[in-house]
């Protein structure tokens, strides 16, 4: 029983021994396969790491890279230059005294019978004289007897008059006891013994008043007059002396009262006591020398002189009031009263007023300064020579006028902006040898104006290189101005020139080194809308800003760099590799090449190429949504390594393109990174099948 079991056991053991299949003595080798990756290079490059330091590179809040060229003042247009204003102007005026109208004057004398009898022939006079002593007597008839010269009292308001116009009235009152059959009288200048007027009367009854008038035009009248009774005829008591019925009671004091009355006398000249005279008011205006369509309404002066010069030939002081209602000095309109004396011997007189702080306000729609002159003579009671042609000559001048403020409508004037230029430092753009198109540049023309004139600027703006010129083809644009109510505010205007309204894209892409500009400024391009104004010193400052976001389309842009190297080989390795972990956060695809060179012979010994590193994923706006991640293994054989170690220079080249080559533009943000972690892959293999 046991033996079969043992046999079974033995067989089982033999069976089990046969399970050892392999002859371990045939172990020939040990297979080891190890692969190590050793960090070799860590590269993280942003756009700012590649670009040269450039003060024109700015980064937005959202990290968009922009190239910004800015000059806040490429041209200044002074406000004063937009209004041609003649600072020196004057007018001459004359105020003629003219014919003086004297007050009416009169005088009366009584020619007594006795005085006449004294002038008569004694034979005629004696009986009259004797009869006058009687209470009633015979008055002999008088026949054309000379009655003698009888003097009026001298006038005290003139010495002589050259009468222009006037009427002398003569009135005779017969208070004699006899009728005057005829009477001829002569009014005589005593001084010149010249009869200046004759009067004849007849049949003048006792107690009758008769009169006559005579024009005195052209007559020189002295202040001493006499009446000469040239002929006196009277029937007396008749021819019968005995007829006591005809006998008269008369006296030698009986008179003929002769009155003279000058009326409406105007005098050409003379020596007179000037009456109060109002000279003719003179109004005139001074028209400012301005362009035709300029209409000023208000001028504030910062400097200037108002001068009034005068000469006077009048012997009487003349009070001249000069009024310039437009001109305001010290807040009130200019009104000045001058007492103008005769300047024939002393020479002309000039009086000045400083216009600093003065204003001229034109209320009428004309650029005229009104002047009003009023002359007045207030009689001083002196006898003075007089001539109607005496005058006061006035010269009113405004000189050295400079305004601190002027308001009005300055018309449509064309002001030339002279040619000027700005140098552009384009180091950033120069680094692109080609293949980069900047797709969305913008040029902003900035103006800063405190000149109260709407303007339109027609700008000629060019970019220039050594070989090319490209005009911006800018449209005329408005320069806004402050409003009249804004005080001293400055209005800033920015006008954008972009790809849709100008040739800015073409201009920027020639990479200009110089910007040349000129142009014309048109004032009030839309005509008169609201009042213009200019403060002294106000100006329009023109600047520009060229904003180039790095929004580019790239077609085969090549960036390269060279570095000297020293490489030793790695022994005991059949091959190894480089494993590149690449994160391309740029919206550009790239081919990367490392060329190992012999700098002595300038030959390329070998190369490592990484093809088509795709760009990161971009959205519709060209912004990176996510980077492109690559994990690439580059095998390097021993033969390749032997070549590489001979190199002493590495030329690195990156060729980049936008998506779909350059049919898409992409923005470059400074937070974009191109990262590459390069590891050395050591593949250790020994043994093998």
């Amino acid at each position, binding site marked *: 029983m*046991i033996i079969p*079991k*043992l046999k079974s*056991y*033995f067989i089982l*053991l*033999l069976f*089990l*021994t046969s*399970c*050892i*299949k*392999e*002859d*371990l003595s*045939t*172990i*020939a*080798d*040990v*297979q*080891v*396969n*190890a*692969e*190590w*990756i*050793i*960090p*070799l*290079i*860590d*590269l*993280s490059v942003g756009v700012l790491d590649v670009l040269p330091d450039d003060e024109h590179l700015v980064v937005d809040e959202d990290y968009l890279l922009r190239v910004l060229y800015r000059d806040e003042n490429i041209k200044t247009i002074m406000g004063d230059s937009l209004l041609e204003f003649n600072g020196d102007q004057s007018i001459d005026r004359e105020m003629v005294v003219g014919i003086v109208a004297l007050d009416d004057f009169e005088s009366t004398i009584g020619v007594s019978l006795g005085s006449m009898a004294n002038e008569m022939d004694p034979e005629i006079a004696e009986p009259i004289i004797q009869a006058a002593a009687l209470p009633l007597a015979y008055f002999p008839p008088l026949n054309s007897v000379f009655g003698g010269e009888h003097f009026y009292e001298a006038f005290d308001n003139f010495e002589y008059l050259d009468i222009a116009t006037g009427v002398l009235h003569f009135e005779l009152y017969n208070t004699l006891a006899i009728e005057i059959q005829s009477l001829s009288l002569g009014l005589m200048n005593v001084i010149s013994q010249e009869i200046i007027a004759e009067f004849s009367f007849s049949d003048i009854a006792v107690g009758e008043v008769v009169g006559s008038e005579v024009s005195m035009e052209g007559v020189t009248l002295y202040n001493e007059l006499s009446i000469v009774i040239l002929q006196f005829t009277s029937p007396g008591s008749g021819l019968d002396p005995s007829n006591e019925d005809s006998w008269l009671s008369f006296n030698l004091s009986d008179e003929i009262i002769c009155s003279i009355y000058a009326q409406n006398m105007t005098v050409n000249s003379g020596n007179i006591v000037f009456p109060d005279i109002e000279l003719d008011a003179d109004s005139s205006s001074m028209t400012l020398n301005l362009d035709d369509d300029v209409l000023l309404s208000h001028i504030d002066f910062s400097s200037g002189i108002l001068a009034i010069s005068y000469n006077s030939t009048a012997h009487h002081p003349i009070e001249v009031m000069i009024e310039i209602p437009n001109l305001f000095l010290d807040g009130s309109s200019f009104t000045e009263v001058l007492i103008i004396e005769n300047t024939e011997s002393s020479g002309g007189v000039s009086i000045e007023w400083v216009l600093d702080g003065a204003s001229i306000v034109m209320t009428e729609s004309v650029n005229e300064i009104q002047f009003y002159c009023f002359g007045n003579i207030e009689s001083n009671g002196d006898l003075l020579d007089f001539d109607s042609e005496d005058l006061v000559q006035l010269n009113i001048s405004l000189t050295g006028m400079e305004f601190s403020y002027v308001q009005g409508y300055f018309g449509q004037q064309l002001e030339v902006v002279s040619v000027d230029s700005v140098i552009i430092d384009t180091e950033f753009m120069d680094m692109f040898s080609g293949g980069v198109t900047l797709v969305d540049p913008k040029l902003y023309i900035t103006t800063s104006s405190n000149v109260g004139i709407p303007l339109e600027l027609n700008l000629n703006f060019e970019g220039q290189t050594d070989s090319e010129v490209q005009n911006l083809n800018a449209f005329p644009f408005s320069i806004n101005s402050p409003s009249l109510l804004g005080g001293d505010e400055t209005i800033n205007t920015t006008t954008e020139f972009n790809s849709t309204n100008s040739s800015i894209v073409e201009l920027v892409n020639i990479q200009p080194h110089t910007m040349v500009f000129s142009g014309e400024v048109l004032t009030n391009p839309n005509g008169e809308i609201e009042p213009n104004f200019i403060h002294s010193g106000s100006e329009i400052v023109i600047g520009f800003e060229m904003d180039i976001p790095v929004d580019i389309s790239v077609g085969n842009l090549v960036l390269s760099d060279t*570095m*000297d*190297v*020293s*490489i*030793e080989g790695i022994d005991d390795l059949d091959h190894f590799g480089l494993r590149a*972990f*690449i*994160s391309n956060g740029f919206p550009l695809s790239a081919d990367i090449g490392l060329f190992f060179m012999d700098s002595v012979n300038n030959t390329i010994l070998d190369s490592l190429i990484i093809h088509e590193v795709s760009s990161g994923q971009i959205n519709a706006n060209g912004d990176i949504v996510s*980077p492109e*991640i690559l994990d690439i293994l580059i095998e390097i054989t021993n033969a390749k390594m032997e070549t590489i170690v001979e190199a002493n220079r*590495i030329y690195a080249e990156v060729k980049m393109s936008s998506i779909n080559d350059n049919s898409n533009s992409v923005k470059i943000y400074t937070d974009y990174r191109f*990262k*590459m*972690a*390069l*590891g*050395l*892959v*050591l593949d*250790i293999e020994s*043994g*093998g*099948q």
Partner: protein
Amino acid sequence: MRIILIFICMFPMMICAQNHLENDTTINSWAQSPVYFPNKDVVIKVGLYAGIDLPFALNDALLKRSDDSLLISIPQLFSNLDDHVNIVSNSNIELFYIGMKLGSKRKSYFSFSSQLVTHLDVNFNHNFLSYLIQGNTNYLGVNVLQPGIGNGFMAYNSLILSYAQKVNSKLLFEIKVKRLTGLASVYFEEFDINLYSHLPINAEALYSEIDQNILIHTSSIDKNRAKDYLENKGYAFDFGLEYKLNNRLKLLASIQDVGSISWNKQNNLSIESDSLIRLESLIDLDQEELSINDDIQETLDSLTNLFSVDTLYTTYSTALPKQYFVGAYYKIDFKQAFSLMLHSIHHEAVFYNSINLAYQRRFGSHFSTQVHYQVIDKSYNNFGLGLGLHFGNFDMQLSTYNILAIDLLNAEKMAYKIALRFQFDRKERNPDIERKFGDYKNRF
């Protein structure tokens, strides 16, 4: 190998043995039994147990080439490794054992023995080993952690004094006191290594890091430091219980090797290192001229300076791996028995567990065999076979707990035991009765 197996096959025919079934539950993964109270009055034995639990079979690493030669393939080996690479090895050489029952009723049993014990317990993370041996390329972006607290090896001599006592017909206990002398030790008090090679998912910097915190003690390993191993002392204790439920079934339990060894500093050499080493890009692109090899050398030099190791000479202590046994033994008849044993080794918070189910059968008077099945640490295909030869007072036992380990190429777990025992009673027993019924007094 074939020679050994032939020997095994031949041996049963050469040796005669007593035809009785030994109350021997030693057919398990370890040489020790939970409780030992022999049938005979006097026992003298020697034995050898050796076992190794590998994380791989040799065949896992072999490739046949076209010329039929074999290639040890490390890559293939690693592909067949589990996540946790554990190497556990224990050996126990019982140099001598003598035991004797005392008392008129033979209810007390004393023994004195000396054992030479080795214990190897190494745990590695599969990824850690692969990273070191096969490179870091497959571990980019992966934290490879190697916690290795408690790894180590120890060899010690144990002088054991045991006392077993039958309390009554059902209950039996055993106490052992062990005097330990440390012979050699390697102890990983701290072995935390974190290897990390960054995977630049977004092309950020590629770098590798080694974060290490190491404290390794050795005793009597460095020949210059092995001055007097006798100064490496320790004590351990065992306690076991056996309880008979009835004539057939008994329950066993014990806890063993509760103790530690203090390794004297004069024998010791410890290394300590705590550093973080980071290897970044070797080449600095900011230079005007690149000298790649100079850059690499400079980087490596700087790394070397960062990695510093301190040498210490300190006393340290290591705890013995505690063993827990819980089982049952069921005797079917005089010839057959089943046993079920749960065995756990507890070392440094790691439990190494096994379940042993054994069937013993006696064939005649000289031959017995055991067949057992073990589940060892998640390994479910461990069939063991034991052979017992019994000739008079002399027993010989050969066991393996994984018969499939005969195929060494495919065996991961191997354990063998050889035991020689000579036992006898002080008083002549009735040979006729014993021949027919065995040692019926102690029959169970």
